[in-house]
């Protein structure tokens, strides 16, 4: 097996028949596509026709790489978590996306997309946000480039993520509450899509995860693929080989996971572990574990797994972590689940909160609650002592302090 990559632009054919990347038609297996109303067609088609061309352009790559280095602070360390490893009797490396500017992996994608928007001559940027991390990352790059920025955020999330709302405002963005439906991430996404329908010419929609119509899942995965590109080099230095035995990441829509898996998708020696939010428990009706509770359907322009009623109405997910509170997963992850390539684990609020405290005390790193879900699997999922397990530490916990405080009466 060999695949040589320049930020995910080219992948050589795999010898095994299963392909985990997107095909020409925009599908991962049976998932993906672009189920969009005609009003969105010109915008999405413009992007589809241009994104690979733009991304493979040398000048684009140069600008992208430079910003990732000088502005975001990449490469992020691959840190061997000694005390955490001792506790679980295996070798755990943490990919420190929490050290990215703005505090999470989200900015890798927004840097890429703002450069894309400029190449497409767009002057107005819109985005949706749940926890506010993607909103902040979008507002940040808009400030950097001097572009107008409008962020849609569920009215309920605006209340529970107040510090991020303030950050977006400081960065010059307009935050618009989504008051329709359940007033959370899926409704913010609906509102952003409606905005795009109403502004068909000057606007680029920076989607925050590997969701939405083709080419978004693929484009976002490519921008995030810098994560696994760096892991390969860093692991080679530390362990003498490019691939770990496992890569673990939390999955909301799935962008940090897609980036962490990207260059290992076709390597059968690497186990892929996706961690979803079980909320209060899979059978409680208050959960966001899409692989366990979802069925095939269409959400936000993509055919994928989503939580819905028998009548096809999209249901409201629940998780203590706003960033995992999404009723679907990106089509890449639906395919990883369905094909058996990925191992899917769901983690409750309680287990994740405890894992967040554990990492803080063992390693001096306070993780985002989304990330805490990925860290919690070590309590139940056992690894061999010489297994190398990379956990994508997708974000830091500053934004979640009030949730940690309330939960533990700190």
């Amino acid at each position: 097996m060999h695949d040589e990559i320049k930020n995910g632009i080219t992948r050589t054919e795999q010898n095994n028949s299963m392909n985990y990347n997107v095909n020409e038609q925009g599908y991962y297996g049976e998932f993906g596509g672009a189920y969009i109303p005609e009003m969105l067609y010109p915008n999405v088609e413009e992007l589809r026709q241009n994104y690979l061309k733009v991304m493979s352009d040398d000048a684009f790559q140069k600008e992208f790489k430079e910003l990732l280095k000088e502005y975001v602070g990449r490469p992020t360390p691959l840190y061997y978590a000694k005390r955490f490893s001792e506790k679980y009797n295996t070798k755990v490396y943490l990919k420190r996306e929490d050290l990215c500017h703005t505090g999470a992996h989200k900015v890798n994608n927004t840097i890429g997309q703002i450069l894309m928007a400029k190449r497409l001559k767009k002057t107005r940027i819109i985005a949706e946000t749940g926890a506010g991390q993607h909103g902040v990352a979008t507002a940040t790059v808009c400030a950097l480039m001097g572009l107008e920025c409008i962020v849609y955020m569920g009215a309920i999330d605006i209340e529970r993520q107040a510090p991020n709302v303030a950050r977006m405002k400081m960065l010059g963005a307009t935050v618009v509450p989504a008051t329709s439906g359940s007033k959370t991430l899926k409704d913010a996404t609906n509102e952003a899509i409606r905005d795009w329908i109403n502004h068909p010419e000057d606007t680029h929609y920076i989607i925050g995860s590997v969701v939405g119509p083709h080419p978004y899942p693929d484009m976002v995965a490519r921008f995030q693929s810098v994560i696994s590109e760096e892991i390969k080099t860093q692991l080679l230095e530390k362990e003498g080989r490019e691939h770990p035995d496992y890569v673990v990441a939390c999955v909301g829509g799935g962008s940090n996971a897609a980036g962490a898996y990207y260059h290992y998708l076709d390597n059968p020696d690497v186990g892929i572990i996706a961690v979803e939010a079980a909320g209060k428990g899979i059978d409680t009706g208050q959960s966001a574990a899409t692989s366990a509770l979802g069925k095939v359907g269409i959400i936000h322009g993509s055919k994928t797994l989503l939580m819905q009623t028998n009548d096809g109405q999209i249901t409201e997910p629940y998780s203590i972590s706003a960033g995992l509170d999404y009723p679907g997963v990106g089509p890449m992850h639906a395919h990883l689940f369905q094909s058996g390539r990925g191992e899917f684990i769901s983690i409750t609020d309680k287990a994740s909160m405890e894992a967040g405290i554990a990492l803080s005390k063992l390693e001096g790193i306070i993780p985002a609650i989304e990330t805490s879900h990925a860290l919690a699997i070590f309590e139940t999922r056992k690894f061999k002592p010489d297994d190398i397990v990379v956990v994508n530490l997708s974000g830091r916990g500053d934004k979640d302090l009030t949730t940690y405080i309330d939960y533990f009466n700190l």
Partner: protein
Amino acid sequence: MNRIHKKLSEDKKLLSIYFTAGYPEVNDTVPILESLEKNGVDLVEIGLPFSDPLADGPTIQASSTQALLNGMTTQKLFEQLKDIRKTVSIPLILMGYFNPVLQYGVEAFCKECNEIGIDGCILPDLPLAEYNAHYRAIFEKYNLINIFLITPQTSQERIHAIDEASNGFIYMVSSASTTGAQEGFGNEQTTYFNRIATMDLKNPQVVGFGISNEATFNAATKQAKGAIIGSAFIKMITENGISGIPKFIRSIRPL
């Protein structure tokens, strides 16, 4: 001949009404249809409510949310419409998002439509390419006309492709927007209406989005075959109920 074709062959401008099934009350669907026919409406789009109607503005969103709260489902709609052809003879089109249809089963859905006497469907988020590749044969088997949208941004080339795939009428979205009444039509719309009128398409066009009164109806149908009123009708029925229908229709199309 499908009822839609027959209606399109009549020598008049067509007035079409969109309403959300199960709104304001769950059992209003059939009385609304009967009243629309009695008051001279030419065809009807029956909206299947969806939890996430991303092409719709606030009015239709709110009616969908309420209809779902009222207990509306695809199954229930089919039950309500079981005997509709005993009392209503104008063309009936189901309009909704693709996910509920997918969950019902596309073939089961089309079969049910056929048995009831539904004439066509508008599924805005089922794209042309998907339809042609996977679903066209099923729709045709059950004699259902699938209607596609075009917008002011749709390229000439794509309009021709849509015209080719269509068999009935083309749903001409009046402007770059979600559904909802607008103040009126400006130069941009006039230019767009003129451009489409001179394209010599094989299918007639019916204009939708932003039609709310006699003036916008007349402007839209100056060249197009008909026009669809949605949000303005839903606003009216929210305020006045079913008994407000005769007056509303006469305000668009005086006797």
